[in-house]
């Protein structure tokens, strides 16, 4: 390994390490999962311990899109636009079964999983997921971020 590649590898590692502890998420909250998101974000479970304590309510300033709650067909174009507005690097977390697969809403109104619209990095199942599973999902996302796995 030459000096140049050693340097870039270490630099990528450093950037990955920095990124995984400075997650600015955009909570796209549409349904009851939002309550569980709030419980996770507040002091009892405290996602600030993982450097994800500051949600940005503008997609342009966020790098992780938390899709929290059922996405209807009419909401789908909005979600797509929000995703497109985020600057790179960006990651997407599907929070709850509705965003993963449509959940039990197997009907005319609900999108059967947001991965039919946008790419998803981490799926957190549950109806709604316990804060522990959210934190587990967040840590998996951190691993992914640290490894430099991103799609753009």
């Amino acid at each position, binding site marked *: 390994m030459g000096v140049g590649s050693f340097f870039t590898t270490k630099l990528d590692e450093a950037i990955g390490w920095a990124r995984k502890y400075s997650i600015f998420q955009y909570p796209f909250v549409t349904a009851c999962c939002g309550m569980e998101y709030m419980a996770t974000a507040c002091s009892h479970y405290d996602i600030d311990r993982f450097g994800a304590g500051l949600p940005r309510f503008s997609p342009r300033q966020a790098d992780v899109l938390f899709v929290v709650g059922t996405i209807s067909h009419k909401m789908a174009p909005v979600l*797509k636009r929000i995703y497109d507005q985020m600057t790179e690097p960006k990651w997407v977390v599907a929070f709850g079964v509705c965003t993963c697969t449509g959940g039990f809403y197997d009907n005319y109104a609900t999108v059967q999983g947001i991965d039919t619209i946008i790419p998803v990095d981490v799926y957190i199942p549950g109806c709604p997921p316990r804060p522990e599973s959210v934190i587990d999902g967040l840590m998996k996302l951190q691993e992914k971020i640290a490894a430099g796995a991103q799609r753009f």
Partner: protein
Amino acid sequence: MQGDAILDALRERFGAAVVETHAHRGDHTAVVTRQALPDVLRHCRDDAGLAFDVLMDLTAVDYSRFPGREDGPRFEVVYHLYSIRHNHRLRLKTRVDEDDPVVPTAVGLWPIADWLEREVWDMFGVRFEGHPDLRRLLLYEEFSGHPLRKDYPINRRQPLIGPRV
């Protein structure tokens, strides 16, 4: 006015156009023919004794799989009227067939009927003749079918729509 008196007044004025009436636990219902519907609605709103100034709800029912009514007119369009002045209520219904699901509009009487009729068109595919802008209200233009019809497959997939420009 008491509910029974309202039904009596309607029967007296419109005669055979009032197909059927019934009362159940204080809810009074009159079923009228489609042809008479605009006149009945206008009378309900403008008559001083009735003065139904609020159209509380306008919806429809699909009776195609209702026991005993599979062969009859498929849809029933339901109007819930309320009078602020007299504090009384009335439910009006009209029946339409599957091959001709058209009902005269009530937008000229109560402006709220605009969106309610669009919703009924969206969900049941019942058209409202004379409506100024009968587009889908809740669903989107690419959607095919009317999901609250009983023969709509519960898990039919519809095309995804992209961002609007």
